[in-house]
């Protein structure tokens, strides 16, 4: 029943305040949509923003709504159509949405939303079970080159960041990305079991998902996808092993289409202030998220490039028909 009450209450509050409150930033009344069910990464990001924006007194109140479905396709459709021109709404999105939109042939695309800022990112890692004969990323590359079908990769949903990464890995080392034997599992838990049980050759996921197992020695990390080594983590990057694979699972926030430049500036300023607040920094530390703040045109550019890159990869593995 909770969503009902919060929704109603929020609507009433928004109505009364829209009529009276001037658009001063300290009196911002925002609605942030998490285009996913409560609990996932996007929902956590939206709720973290809510917490930080209110704690840092940047906004008076924030209401988080959840519209789950199809990697965000349902949420973005509702956001683009329903919130058009509304300067008091934002939506969280990320890497996974890019692929999901392409695969679901969504009529709504990320080109339609107004980019605000990239917020966080998570570095990806490839792991093998501790007793695997593969010791380095080059060993894995050699195995892939020897017989690509025999190297099985376990990871998250089809077309998600893990899948894209497997395809990029194969492409980078000169193998045929179309032939990769990628086995999608629902959620990190299930794929982790398959890796630990030796059912697959290697596993791909975000760093945090496997951290405990890597530290305890049950899994061996072959490489991480960051530019440089992550401070305090003793895992080589792919780059230093001669494989040009740089990738991060980013999350960002966007505004509806059709808002005025002033409205865009108000939202961008609010997010910038939030990113610099102690409240936000505390949340990042506590959740283990890496700050990846990028705003304005630089972010819009990044979004465009990433969309092209992901769509190309998905075409190359046959998930998106060209």
């Amino acid at each position, binding site marked *: *029943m909770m969503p009902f009450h919060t929704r109603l209450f929020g609507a009433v509050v928004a109505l009364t305040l829209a009529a009276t409150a001037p658009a001063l930033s300290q009196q911002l009344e925002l609605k942030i949509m998490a285009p996913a069910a*409560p609990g996932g990464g996007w929902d956590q990001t939206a709720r973290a923003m809510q917490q930080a924006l209110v704690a840092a007194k940047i906004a008076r109140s924030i209401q988080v709504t959840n519209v789950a479905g*199809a990697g965000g396709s349902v949420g973005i459709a509702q956001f683009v159509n329903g919130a058009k021109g509304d300067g008091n709404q934002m939506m969280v999105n990320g890497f996974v949405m890019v692929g999901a939109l392409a695969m679901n042939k969504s009529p709504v695309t990320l080109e339609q939303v107004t980019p605000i800022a990239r917020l966080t990112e998570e570095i990806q890692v490839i792991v093998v079970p501790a007793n695997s004969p593969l010791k380095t990323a080059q060993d894995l590359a050699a195995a892939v080159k020897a017989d690509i079908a025999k190297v*099985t990769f376990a990871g998250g949903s*089809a077309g998600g960041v893990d899948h894209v990464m497997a395809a990029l890995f194969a492409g980078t080392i000169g193998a045929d990305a179309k032939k990769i034997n990628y086995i999608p599992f629902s959620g990190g838990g299930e794929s982790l*079991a398959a890796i630990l049980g030796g059912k697959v050759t290697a596993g791909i996921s975000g760093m945090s998902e496997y951290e405990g197992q890597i530290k305890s020695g049950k899994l061996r990390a072959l490489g991480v996808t960051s530019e440089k080594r992550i401070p305090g983590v003793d895992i080589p990057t792919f780059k230093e092993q001669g494989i040009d694979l740089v990738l991060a699972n980013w999350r960002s926030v966007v505004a509806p289409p059709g808002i005025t430049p002033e409205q865009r500036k108000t939202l961008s300023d609010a997010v910038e202030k939030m990113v610099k607040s102690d409240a936000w920094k505390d949340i990042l530390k506590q959740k283990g998220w890496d700050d990846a703040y990028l705003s304005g045109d630089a972010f819009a550019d990044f979004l465009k490039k990433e969309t092209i890159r992901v769509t190309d990869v998905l075409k190359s593995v046959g998930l998106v028909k060209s």
Partner: protein
Amino acid sequence: METFAALAHGMAVAVQPMNLLYALIGVFLGTAVGVLPGIGPALTVALLLPVTYKLDPGGSLIMFAGIYYGGMYGGSTTAILINTPGESASMATALEGNKMAKAGRGGPALATSAIGSFVAGTIATIGLAFLAPWLVDFAVRFGPEDYFALMCVAFVTVSATFGDSPIRGLTSLFVGLTLGLIGIDKLTGQARLAFGIPELLDGVEVTTLAVGLFALGEALYVASRRHHAEEKIEPVRGSLWMTKEDWKRSWKPWLRGTMFGFPIGALPAGGAEIPTFLSYSTEKRLTKHPEEFGKGAIEGVAGPEAANNASAAGTLVPLLTLGLPTSATAAMMLAGFQQYGLNPGPLLFAERPDLVWGLIASLFIANVMLLVLNLPLVGLWVKLLAIPQPWLYAGILVFATMGTIAAKPSVVELSMLAGFGVLGFLMRRFDFPIAPVVVGLILGPIAESQLRRALAISLGDPLVLLQSSMSATLLGIALIALLAPFVLKGLGRFKASED
């Protein structure tokens, strides 16, 4: 001995007044959301996460565990009383439980489910404390082919158990399997049978189907029969409490249900539904009162109820030892751990023994609390059945619809609910069993993706299904279960002619 000392230490943590309070809040909330269809423990934990952020980790995790156990209890109450399973794990309970309630035996049905849950929860928690490290090794070795074989066992037992004839059971099962195809294919990311409707991309929600078929279908059916012979609901007939006979018929199903629930719950892709249905099928086969099945047999409530609570404890095995969340609620609890910078996994036992053992100990306490909370309520719940039928069913309709909207506010979802209600009505009218539809929807997609995963790993060699000893054994069991009724029937005829 080390485990005992650790557990004793955990008890000391758990009985601190604040932690007891958290456990109480947890089981109370859990029972409440379990009663509401559509709002499960996973959603509750998700909504509470930001609220509990400021609490100490031990306390809030204890509360989450209480919610989890409580949800399993609460779901069965509505299943028994108004044939509306609060969540899919209580579906098997509705089958016999609601029949019992209509025959005036709602009291014993609720009691056997509460006590059975307690017994199973306690045994399974002991299992969690002592067997976790061993069990998790077994669970991790369970590969895609083994899951597929397990699903085969479930399919065979379910379609053979429900309905008057296997052909009707199979028909229902295939309706469910077809519904299971709707949405994005897990392995290729392509949409199937979605007809361009975005809401269908994630497939059919199990609770929507279950609530539509069970609750709405039932309400429509009752309304349609109103001018025929009115079905008499007797609130209470005989004892409100379990009789000696009830106890005698319940204790074995409790134990067998636990044996199904705990290990399957511990499997990373096991879930709570399969053990409840396996338990139901087993009880139906083993019972000394086969004539009562379908009319309200207490074994059919005792077994599945024990199984679903045992599986809840089983889920915590991979969560605590490996950091593997194997159910939606477990995934939320994992998020809860991470909120405090704790990484469940092999290191958690070593780094934070107070937390882990405190959690395990508080599960025992949550179990006792649930029993104390639920048994006195039995009398109150049963009064619900005394409400005049039109009112009761109108209430059920409102209740079911609200639950569905609360979980997923969309027109499409509501239309589906109504559509499934009509389907449920027609199936009742023409004597098709309902449960296999839901089983098909839950297990079909899992069986499909596990089979395809197994084949992808083996590069398309179907023999992989027989190479693993576990999978070969399970497939053998499925084959025997499929053929046994025919063989036994043949033998029975042979015997009969001998007499």
